[in-house]
């Protein structure tokens, strides 16, 4: 079998893999930000809510999170009279991965926020900024820069986790590879999986390059 045929077949799953990756990362970041915000509240109930989410999610394997999303969400929605059984599988994949990665991103954002020098906030107040401007102009950008290496790691982890959606029957790159291997009765299986590994590696290289550009742009910002 020609290498080009393998590549073309595997790339058929690329749009699904990338859509899943981008959407999951986006929603996981929103969940992470929201949970970090709740966690840092002085209100013990809100803070406990975030801790509960964190505890549950971090203790659940990502594969299980996807299965719970795929089988659990339709049941949950049925309770309120909404039928989502025929919704696209990618929806359940995005929900499962977003909830799963949201917890890790929450930890990345929260720990970064807590490590911003308190003096930076005080300096912002001392020049007459209100709390909102001090947060958006000074604290948030610095939090982001501190969290950057962790965010990069989590995003790379998410790239690999997208392959787990094969359990829901989604046609991503991994699923294309197993199908192709099965169609050939396992002949060239190793070659197919090596090419698949290289494709995932290329995605990771691209992510590393984007983050390297970030680091280069902010190379003089030492926080």
């Amino acid at each position, binding site marked *: 079998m020609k290498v080009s045929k393998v590549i073309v077949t595997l790339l058929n799953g690329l749009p699904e893999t990338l859509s899943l990756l981008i959407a999951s990362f986006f929603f996981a970041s929103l969940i992470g930000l929201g949970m970090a915000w709740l966690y840092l509240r002085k209100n013990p109930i809100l803070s406990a809510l975030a801790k509960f989410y964190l505890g549950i999610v971090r203790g659940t394997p990502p594969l299980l999170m996807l299965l719970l999303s795929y089988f659990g969400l339709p049941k949950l929605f049925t309770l309120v009279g909404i039928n989502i059984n025929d919704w696209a599988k990618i929806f359940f994949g995005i929900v499962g991965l977003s909830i799963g990665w949201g917890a890790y991103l929450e930890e990345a954002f929260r720990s970064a926020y807590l490590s911003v*020098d308190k*003096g*930076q906030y*005080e*300096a*912002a*107040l*001392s*020049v*007459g*900024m*209100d709390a909102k*401007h001090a947060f958006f*102009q*000074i604290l948030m*950008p*610095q939090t982001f*820069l501190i969290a950057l290496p962790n965010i990069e790691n989590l995003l790379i982890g998410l790239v690999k986790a997208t392959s787990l959606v094969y359990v829901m029957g989604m046609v991503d790159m991994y699923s294309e590879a197993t199908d192709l291997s099965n169609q050939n009765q396992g002949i060239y299986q190793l070659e197919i999986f090596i090419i698949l590994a290289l494709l995932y590696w290329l995605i990771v290289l691209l992510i590393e390059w984007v983050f390297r550009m970030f680091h280069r742009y*902010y190379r*003089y*910002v*030492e*926080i």
Partner: protein
Amino acid sequence: MLLEIKSLKKKFANNTVLKGINLSIKAGEVVVIIGPSGSGKTTLLRNINFLEQADSGTMVFKDKQLNLANLSNEEILWVRRHTAMVFQNYNLFKNKTAIENISEGLIFGQNRSKKDALQLAKKALDSVGLLDKQDFYPAQLSGGQQQRIGIVRATVLNPDIVLFDEPTSALDPELVGTVLYDMKQLADQGQTMIVVTHQMSFARNVASRVVFFADGEIIETGTPSEVFDHPKNKRTKQFLSAIAEDY
């Protein structure tokens, strides 16, 4: 009086840090607060712009009466927008360039347009000979340059009072001179300043009034000559006799 503080008290847990401070400052005065470390000098300064909030006491600032134990957010913001602070560790915004550090307060504290703010910031940087550093981030600047930009960041706001919290304590000895020079220039221009420092020669040469502070109380206050040459209080004498520096 520009600022009048009465009976200001502040406790941290069971530790009373300020035991009822009374201090008045006229416009144009340079009040230098000296005293041993841990005596509450910095806490007093931070209580003036409410980075710490007093347990009790009153303050009259620009004829506005403030109850220190019960301040509204508007009052806090109003005071902060009429004062400015220079920090011991500079506290320049690490994610902003020198020029942005100076313009941020003008934009977000004084609602000036970005263009106006940058123009003012440029002029202010030029006045201290640091215009060539405008696009540098704090990490690219020496401690002395950072602190001088810290001073510009404070004074560009045209505040009624600038609070200096040990502005030279974190600097290498050879960089102290340039920062003190900038501060003297400001004093000569009539800027009202409250300076917490261990630089006794600065206190002697620039202060209009020296306040000796110990154990959360003002022990003695007077002109530099009164405090340094003819201290009345035993505690002041003890402190001054232990200082190795010529002043």
